[in-house]
């Protein structure tokens, strides 16, 4: 099993979620995060003083998938999250040794 961790623009969450579901991914966990990267934050004036927001709001999606689903899932994310502009985000993949569904105790691919 693999764990796909991807960081995307927040307003793409709905699209990515749908694309992943179509690719056969049944569950995922989403976190609101702050991103630092090539895309820079913006600068505002508050009472005449500069006020720069360095980070950019991003959304992190974690999805555990069976090995055979990996490529389709990554492609689905890339396709649905891309806007072509800087800051679109990343997809990282790492190995999962084990997965358990708490409710039933099932393990392995059945747990996903």
């Amino acid at each position, binding site marked *: 099993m693999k764990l796909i961790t991807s960081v995307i623009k*927040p*307003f793409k969450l709905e699209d990515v979620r749908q694309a992943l579901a179509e690719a056969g991914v049944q569950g995922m966990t989403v976190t*609101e995060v702050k991103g630092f990267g090539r895309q820079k934050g*913006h600068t*505002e004036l*508050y009472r005449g003083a500069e006020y720069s927001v360095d980070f950019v709001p991003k*959304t992190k999606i974690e999805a555990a998938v069976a090995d055979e689903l990996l490529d389709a899932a990554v492609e689905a994310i890339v396709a649905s999250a891309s806007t072509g502009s800087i800051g679109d985000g990343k997809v990282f993949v790492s190995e999962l040794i084990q997965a358990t569904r708490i409710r039933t105790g099932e393990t392995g691919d059945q747990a996903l």
Partner: protein
Amino acid sequence: MEIAELSYALDTFYFLVMGALVMWMAAGFTMLEAGLVRAKNTAEILTKNVGLYSIACIMYMLCGYGIMYGDGNGVIPGIGLLTAADNAASDVIAGGDDAPYYSSLSDFFFQVVFVATAMSIVSGAVAERMKLFSFFAFAVILTGFIYPIQGYWKWGGGWLDAAGFLDFAGSGVVHMCGGAAALAGVLLLGARKGKYGPLGEVRAIPGANLPLSALGTLILWLGWFGFNGGSELMISNVDEANAVSLVIVNTNMAAAGGLVAALMTARLWFGKADLTMTLNGALAGLVAITAEPLTPSPLLATIIGAIGGIIVVFSIVMLDRKLKIDDPVGAISVHGVVGIWGLLAVVLSNPDASIGAQLLGIVSIFVWVFVTSLAVWFVLSKAMGIRVSEEEEYEGVDIGECGVEAYPEFVEVPE
């Protein structure tokens, strides 16, 4: 000391206190609307509200008051700047039918807060997507010209007054006026992005801070005692004092009736006691009784308010579901639709009212305000644009228009 002077002082003081209560309604609209928009659009709606109140005061001083209460020929009004001149003590003491019985500057103060109320109605309906300065430009025209002209027709002693149209404190002149201007704006502006799905699904966009909306409603409720109570224009003898008391009691009862009716309607229809509808119900009760708070009994006032509270729930849902008119705070329903109900309800208790004159008033005011507003919104949309860019709408107008966030530590990601 002259008793006429003391009476003049009491009526003036009454006017000033009632006016202060109406001014307080500006805070009510501000809080009501700030609670019903999303966090990312909150600083802008605050700016709009405090800005429009100020603009209304300045425009009404410069020309609005002169138009509304100056010398006109019944249809075309006069014009003039407000000065510091006031009544001479000798005229007051001399007495007689035309003797002034309260300070004319206190009258200005009472009137100016009314025009701000009318404009406040607009800001909620166009929230979350309109350009700030286009809105302010519209405020200049509405408060300086559109409102005072129809105000002159009725309260300035113009043709609508002569035609027997009755509107005690402004269900029509103030509330329906605001509702009509708002409707024109919303029609040109269109719905908020994401409000209606591609297949016509209606989506909810919940307000970010409901305690503010509840506070706003209670502020408006309190302020309305001044709005209606002050519109009796005199308190200095037994009959007038009784009249003001009845007006205030009826105003309170109508609000209570409207609130309970809307609460029950929402509960029965949606299965839950929707707080925002409940609050709109109280306001609907208040709007409904405003055209005639003096002739109904307290029980009838409660019923008039309750009917307003039922109407408002249906109106909000119909506008949203059937007509796809996107009004984030329900202003068009509360002030426009229920304003019409209030004007019609005058015939229930006031023997001087006729359904014909009421309809005449409704149609004239609506047509005048709607058509002129539509024209102004249209010119503005060509001249400077009235809607922010899609991206700015997604990011929130706070950053785009005001450069500040309303709650920088509470929310990080625009929803």
